[in-house]
């Protein structure tokens, strides 16, 4: 029952006596009597019993290591080098809290400063915060920030935004009275600039994703940014950082704010969480004042030595309370540090190579997929590839699963006009055998269906 975690459990009498209390109940005498009830919960168990129990539960999961899996759609199976996990599990990092006492928290502070710096290099912007909860919430905050900065209440996003992010965004802006406008995609599966021009009028911000939800590298990023700026809107780019070894930094393509998902570096799939939202902005005083989240800054100590500290805290809720830029307090520091360690290990060559591998694997995969499905858009894909099948995708999914293969993400519920289309994804972890198995089995399933 956890007494092994509670050193003074054995000394209650002694301590009560020392401070003049008679019993533990005296310490709870302020609780209104009628309210106290018995708790209907199991008694505590030994660590070994819980070990067996948790193992038994977890064994009901089948992992992507146990079945070739072609799921992406916003969560990707990347390999995390062992040293990254080892380092963030160091107890000094993982068991610490927000570095309020800078003098004994230089390790976490510097690690987060390095995270900010690495992301800054990646996205080509100078101001980066120490993380948001995830890409979706970062986007929500970006929309709110755009509205605050531009004092307008329209935020324009592509219709082919990730469904998770779409839902988060909508919840985040509700209270602020911001309206989301959606822009359709063109025949290349990219944002339709004509419609954008229309909708960007009066917009506080315009948002685009790189790659977009269809896995397509939007070619007209710069043009979209120009349209945003022509309409005095902030240009917000959402980015998968693993593409940034081969694709230009959004900051160099005109982005005012970059959001994205840091956990694609340094974190496992983890059933979708924890993640960490990237949030970076241009070095512009007006923007900085409106930026949400915690920021670590470099300064010096009393002896002039370089040191790190939380900074620009006047934007935050513990000082500005109801007027804070955001309510975010706990962030995803450790996930950010993991991303930093992974990024530092990759370096420029590693990140470029990672991008190249994924690009090539995706191209190869698309070619192979085209043997059994139609690829609706002619564009360059990264990780995700939409594929349209001749028979209901649910049938294919079901039969693949029976054969120990997990297919992709079914798009029809979100985009009915795409028909029997699923989003299938690969990364650097995808093995040739897995692709072979997929194609072979889909062929068989299609053949069977024809009979």
């Amino acid at each position, binding site marked *: 029952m956890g007494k092994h975690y509670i050193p003074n459990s054995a000394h209650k009498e002694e301590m009560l006596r020392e401070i003049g209390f008679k019993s533990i109940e005296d310490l709870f005498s302020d609780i209104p009597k009628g309210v106290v009830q018995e708790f209907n*919960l199991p008694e505590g168990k030994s660590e070994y019993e819980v070990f067996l129990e948790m193992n038994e539960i977890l064994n009901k*999961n089948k992992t992507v290591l146990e079945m070739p899996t072609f799921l992406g759609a916003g969560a990707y199976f990347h390999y995390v080098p062992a040293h990254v996990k080892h380092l963030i599990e160091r107890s000094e990092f993982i068991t610490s809290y927000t570095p309020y006492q800078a003098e004994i928290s230089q390790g976490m502070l510097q690690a987060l400063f390095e995270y900010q710096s690495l992301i800054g290099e990646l996205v080509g912007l100078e101001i980066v915060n120490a993380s948001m909860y995830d890409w979706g919430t970062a986007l929500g905050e970006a929309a709110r920030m755009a509205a605050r900065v531009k004092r307008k209440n329209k935020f324009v996003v592509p219709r082919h935004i990730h469904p998770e992010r779409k839902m988060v965004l909508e919840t985040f802006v509700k209270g602020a009275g911001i309206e989301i406008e959606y822009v359709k995609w063109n025949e290349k599966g990219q944002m339709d600039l004509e419609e954008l021009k229309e909708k960007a009028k009066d917009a506080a911000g315009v948002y685009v994703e790189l790659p977009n939800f269809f896995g397509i590298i939007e070619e007209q990023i710069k043009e979209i940014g120009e349209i945003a700026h022509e309409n005095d809107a902030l240009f917000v780019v959402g980015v998968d950082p693993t593409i940034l070894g081969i694709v230009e930094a959004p900051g160099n393509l005109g982005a005012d704010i970059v959001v994205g998902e840091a956990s694609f570096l340094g974190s496992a799939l983890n059933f979708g969480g924890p993640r960490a939202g990237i949030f970076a902005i241009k070095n512009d005083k007006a923007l900085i004042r409106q930026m949400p989240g915690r920021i670590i*800054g470099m300064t010096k100590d009393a002896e002039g030595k370089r040191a790190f500290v939380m900074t620009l805290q006047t934007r935050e809720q513990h000082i500005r309370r109801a007027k804070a830029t955001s309510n975010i307090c706990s962030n995803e520091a450790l996930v950010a540090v993991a991303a930093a360690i992974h990024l*530092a290990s990759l370096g420029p060559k590693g990140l470029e190579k990672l991008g190249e591998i994924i690009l090539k694997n995706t191209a190869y995969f698309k070619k192979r997929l085209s043997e059994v499905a139609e690829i609706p858009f002619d564009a360059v894909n990264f990780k995700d590839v939409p594929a349209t099948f001749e028979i209901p995708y649910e049938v294919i999914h079901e039969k693949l699963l029976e054969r120990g293969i997990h297919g992709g993400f079914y798009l029809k519920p979100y985009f009915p006009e795409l028909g029997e289309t699923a989003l299938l994804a690969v990364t650097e972890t995808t093995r040739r055998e897995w692709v072979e198995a997929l194609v072979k089995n889909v062929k068989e399933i299609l053949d069977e269906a024809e009979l």
Partner: protein
Amino acid sequence: WDEPLIFELSKPGRVGFTLPEPIEDVEVQIPEKLRRKSLELPEVSEPEVVKHYTRLSEMNYGVDSGIYPLGSCTMKYNPKINEEFANHPKVAFIHPYQDQRTVQGALQIMWELEQWLKEITGMDRFTLQPAAGANGEFTGVMIMRAYHLDRGETQRDEIIVPDSAHGTNPASAAMAGFRVIEIPSNEQGMVDLEALENAVSERTAGIMLTNPNTLGIFEEDILEIAKIVHKAGGLLYYDGANLNGILGKVRPGDMGFDIVHINLHKTFSTPHGGGGPGAGPVGVKKHLVDYLPVPLVDFDGEKYYLNYDVPKSIGKVKEFYGNFTVLVRALTYLKIMGRDGLREAAEVAVLNANYLAQKLKGTRGYELPHKELRKHEVVFSAEPMRKETGVKALDVAKRLLDFGLHAPTIYFPLIVHEALMIEPTETVSKEELDAYVEALKKISEEAYTNPEIVKSAPHNTAVKRVDDVLATKKPIVTWRMYKELKKKGEVDY
């Protein structure tokens, strides 16, 4: 010691990675105008990366380093068994969109955790989605909003918050579009019932309360408060930051709260990770279940499944299903603790706080305002010390670091001047409490005899007192800003 920035360790040509080769060397090109031109990341080898971050870690204080009595943060010991499951391959390697038949274990963990939380708080349903306490608060107030709008009570645009509340409470309320009405505390350090009576109206959407509150004081009038707010048509929101003080003793649901958030990283011992990831599940009473974020996790007697059928749902407050690894840790903890263990944790947490309070009380320079009986934490005021010696709460905090101890939360709650907010938790020993009291007494002595040593503290740390004013005046938040300023000769550090 001084550890350079990772960028400063870079030497061209070094590699710290290995990657598999592409499946096939397919020809494929990024459009020219989008091609990356340059990328200035550090080039370092794996041993250098490991040494660098190992050294940084050694410049950081964690729960395993010693007492960490940060008030309102519940820095309790993080059992290592929890890490074993958080890092389990059956957790690491599952995709959130997998066919639900292949992730029954994950769904069972979420479902089981929800059952525990329901019984612990007296709520009817939980979402595990929020990533942190504040994300939970936002969820909660959005549920309030949806509830009132759904009932056509569009005029309810005010949320009441006591002046002792966490800063996130008003911030969350504002984020959801509410006006924040702050009410004062009485001299006992509790909600002033008269002020509350005056504050409620047909515009009241609800009240956000922490109980025990941020002074560590249990709001004795909680049933009365609930009656007043409910009568006015408002809802009661429970900020679970301080749940550790009443765990297994009394339930928010039984006190009249309609919505609750729990900080798993506080109450249920998941590690704080230097600021996150945490988790802030939100529980509600029956009448609010329909507004919870999607998906919920349900069990049909045979299998667990994600339920997206929540017609009035506020939508999503975070991608996917929450910080799953944090949920795994919390469930592991709960299973080991059980009913008896949870109550024991609360009892000893409260005992430890009161023990410390009584031992320190009467020490020159520190004052114990408000009611004496505390729950899991106690707030002293160093106002007498400041007045008499010029030594401030900040100085006391910094001086504690010299003793190898972590400082308490300072300058919060705002209603106590020069506040020192101390929450020892149940996982520290009597000897550690005694040593902490001794250190605070020693500092008091120093303040009255040799205040300079306190004001210039810390002396024994890796860096001396850090200049946070300079950090704000001259913000340097990335390597690229630093390089630029350095080049211009504007920084000498």
